[in-house]
């Protein structure tokens, strides 16, 4: 069964450093998403991406965040200058139609 692949599974970074979280969506999917789950809390929408541009973003997705699809297969989330409160599980998801997303297994980001 097709999968959404996220790397790395766990990343530890120093506060103020830049991080890039990587995702390989399912190849024929057209819509891509990033969600965040702070430990023990609910899953929150960050951004959606379609046709090589952001289609919607939440208030969490401020200027410190950016997304891009650099090569037609990878889909990346960049956090420019990490803060302690960015520590969370980050999920990538993709979808082909309205049926439902396929989520990746997540990247646990720990900012120290």
């Amino acid at each position, binding site marked *: 069964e097709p999968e959404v692949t996220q790397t790395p599974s766990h990343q530890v970074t120093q506060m103020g450093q830049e991080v890039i979280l990587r995702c390989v969506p399912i190849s024929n999917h057209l819509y891509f998403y990033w969600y965040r789950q702070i430990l023990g809390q*609910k*899953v929150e*929408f960050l951004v959606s991406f379609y046709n090589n541009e952001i289609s919607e973003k939440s208030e969490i997705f401020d200027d410190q965040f950016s997304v891009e699809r650099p090569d037609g297969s990878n889909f990346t989330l960049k956090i420019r200058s990490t803060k302690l409160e960015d520590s969370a599980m980050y999920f990538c998801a993709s*979808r082909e139609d*309205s049926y439902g*997303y396929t*989520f990746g*297994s*997540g990247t646990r980001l720990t900012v120290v």
Partner: protein
Amino acid sequence: AQTVTQSQPEMSVQEAETVTLSCTYDTSESDYYLFWYKQPPSRQMILVIRQEAYKQQNATENRFSVNFQKAAKSFSLKISDSQLGDAAMYFCAYSPYTSGTYKYIFGTGTRLKVLA
């Protein structure tokens, strides 16, 4: 604002028994999707079942079924013949058609424990 409420932080069920997880949502939209996702300890989000709001018939997927009450804005998940592998965090999610992006709004989750 569109919100999703899961009022049961934790539930327990005996193996082979049936359990129902509750979810309510608030929206002024008439067309939307509802989902239940399972998050086991591996943290992966796995789609369990989905329901289109325009369909009156409740969705079923093997041992999983929903009770969708549109007027009451209620969307509960019933798990029959519970198995140890069903132990996980369960999230209810709402997705409006009109957003165009089909973003999800999640509830806070219900942790399901299955007792042997």
